[in-house]
């Protein structure tokens, strides 16, 4: 998209401004909004993580191992004892607890397991291609060895790896959900504004009824209605549909309001008086004018979707294990007991907070920038 902003050196500064398209004006204005720019980069990084989740993961996020239960976060050592650059992690060693007689596994400072970059690890598919290459992997790991940057959970699964995969699920559920509600919102909002009268009244009243329902109990009801024996994918799609069935109302209102406002604009009337067809008026004059508003509305709707999924899954009503999402990771941190024992389980809250904040600032910046005349 940046190709559109290539400079035209033959034009003077003033002429460049005079011939700047809406997109350019928006971009120039957005660029001045520092927080929004930074947020944009953060959001982009998150989606990069979502795209390369398996590549960034170090251990199979589903693999359980009783020996690695509740391992605290482990540092990666970059230099060997002799000072040479050979990253390694400490291996584990089993020690019998004198009180409980259980074998407890703790890091063994004597054992160095070397870390390789771009090395083979557990197999996964990326865009349909089977791959084994990971960003980090252990050279010749023994059973139970792993790079536990963020520690492990009760079942001995690596939290870092799970977090990567959860990021993909939680961020795409937002995208899919917003796409569905965008489609519904633009369609019903547009129809409502275009036809007016009875159609408008009915759609608006339906929106009011939907919006007046308390969301959490409604989600609970709908989510509880999902059959227990559905696969992870089926549940995933049902949850996105449930969330977006409620979220479209906001977008529909934005679209309707903008549509009605634009219809009263004199340049729309001018086109009509020149004999333009409805299609030309809608697609040439009205749609480009509210596209920017839709983009801003979407960037504000996305974090709401992500939060919805996270809270539903946290409450045990959204996605269910073995699916992995931020909400499911946080579910492990529900009991005070496990939290006291393994506070690193809370690390899944950090990306949630980060991405929601980033999306909100990004949306604000986009909204401000989209209206260079406002």
């Amino acid at each position, binding site marked *: 998209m940046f190709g559109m902003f290539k400079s035209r050196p033959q034009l003077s500064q003033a002429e460049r401004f005079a*011939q700047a398209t809406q997109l350019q004006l928006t971009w120039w204005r957005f660029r001045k909004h520092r927080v929004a720019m930074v947020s944009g980069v953060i959001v982009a990084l998150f989606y990069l993580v979502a795209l390369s989740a398996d590549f960034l993961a170090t251990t199979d996020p589903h693999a359980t191992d009783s020996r690695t239960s509740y391992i605290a976060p482990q540092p990666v050592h970059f230099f060997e004892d002799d000072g040479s650059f050979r990253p390694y992690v400490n291996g584990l060693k089993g020690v019998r607890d004198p009180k409980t007689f259980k074998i407890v596994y703790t890091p063994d400072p004597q054992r160095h397991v070397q870390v390789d970059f771009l090395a083979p690890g557990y197999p996964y598919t990326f865009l349909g291609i089977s791959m084994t290459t990971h960003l980090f992997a252990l050279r010749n790991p023994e059973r139970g060895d792993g790079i536990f940057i963020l520690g492990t959970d009760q079942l001995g699964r690596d939290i870092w790896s799970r977090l990567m995969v959860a990021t993909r699920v939680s961020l795409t559920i937002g995208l899919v959900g917003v796409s569905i509600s965008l489609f519904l919102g633009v369609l019903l909002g547009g129809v409502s504004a275009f036809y007016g009268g009875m159609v408008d009244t009915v759609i608006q009243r339906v929106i009011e009824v939907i919006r007046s329902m308390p969301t959490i109990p409604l989600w609970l009801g709908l989510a509880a209605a999902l059959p227990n024996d559905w696969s992870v994918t089926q549940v995933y799609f049902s949850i996105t549909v449930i969330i977006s069935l409620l979220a479209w109302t906001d977008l529909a209102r934005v679209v309707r309001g903008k549509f009605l406002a634009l219809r009263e604009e*004199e*340049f729309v009337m001018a086109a009509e008086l020149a004999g333009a067809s409805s299609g030309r008026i809608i697609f040439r004059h009205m749609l480009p004018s509210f596209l920017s508003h839709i983009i801003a509305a979407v960037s504000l709707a996305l974090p709401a979707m992500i939060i919805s999924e996270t809270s539903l899954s946290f409450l045990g009503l959204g996605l269910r294990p073995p699916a992995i999402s931020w909400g499911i990771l946080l579910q492990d941190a529900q009991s005070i007991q496990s939290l006291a024992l393994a506070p690193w389980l809370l690390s899944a809250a950090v990306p949630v907070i980060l991405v929601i904040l980033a999306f909100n600032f990004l949306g604000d910046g986009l909204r401000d920038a989209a209206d260079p005349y406002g």
Partner: protein
Amino acid sequence: MSARSEGLEAPVLLEVKGLKKYFPIRKGLLRRVVGQVKAVDGVSFAIRKGETLALVGESGCGKTTVSRCILRAMAPSEGAINFAFEGRTVDLATLPRKRLRPLRRHMQMVFQDPYSSLNPRMVVGDTIGEPLLINGMTDRAERRRRVLELMELVGLPGAAINRFPHAFSGGQRQRIGIARALALNPALIVADEPVSALDVSVQAQILNLLLDLQDRLGLTVLFVAHDLSVVKHVSDRVAVMYVGRIVELAETEALYRRPLHPYTEALLSAAPTPVPGAVSQRIILERDIADPANPPPGCAFHPRCRYAEARCKVERPDMVEVEPGRQVACLRAGELVLRGITDMPHEAV
């Protein structure tokens, strides 16, 4: 102005007869109609070819509604709008939308707000060229030639053809709007308060441009305005509207010299005098303009009229031709002697 008075004998281009536009007031969940706003309540006038008729009145008097009905931006509730073109006469009021579209090119509009009337996402060349494109001039080079010609006509530099509206001032934007209206050589131009959103200094430039274009192209113009001082220099005849009806219709000079309706007198007294030190004898109208949803009985102007009598509250005056080419709707038209502007300067703009 006298140069254009010969238009008075020209054939009638547009004849509006008993035009009414009511807007329903809806209330409640079922949107039941509980009343009517009579925005335009029986307006009749005619415009001859080459003539400029000014439609003047306060905000809310229905003048914009009249202009939009004529252009069929909205459908009138009642009445006839007979438009003569290519040797035949069509009633625009009852024409279905489909048959209306080919007629659109003969009537164009200059809008009030030069900021809202130009699409911010289209360059000037596309905005002016759009009517051409829609009406069949698909050849890009030919369209560009015509656009440049129009831009020169309204005094815009040809180099500005690729600029977006945000790069122009209000006056320049209005020139773009005028060029767009002229693109198809329309028989009728409806100018809806074309200068009221502009600075006073720029107003004069745009008015002069309109005058110049009228002379060069022989335009027929319906000029809508809310203030008589603007209209004086551009119009041949003036129609004064009050609450949905025309109350006085006369040739410009006669109307200014000796108004026949008390409302016209009040409007004239509000126009600024260009004579320094002149004592303003402004007539301040009391109360607000009447509510078109609930107009007062009798003459709608009687609650604000300082000449009102008892019969004005009961009897509704109709438009009466008191002299040739001069109509007024006032019960006391014959007896009142009203004050106009006697020292009308000839070239103040």
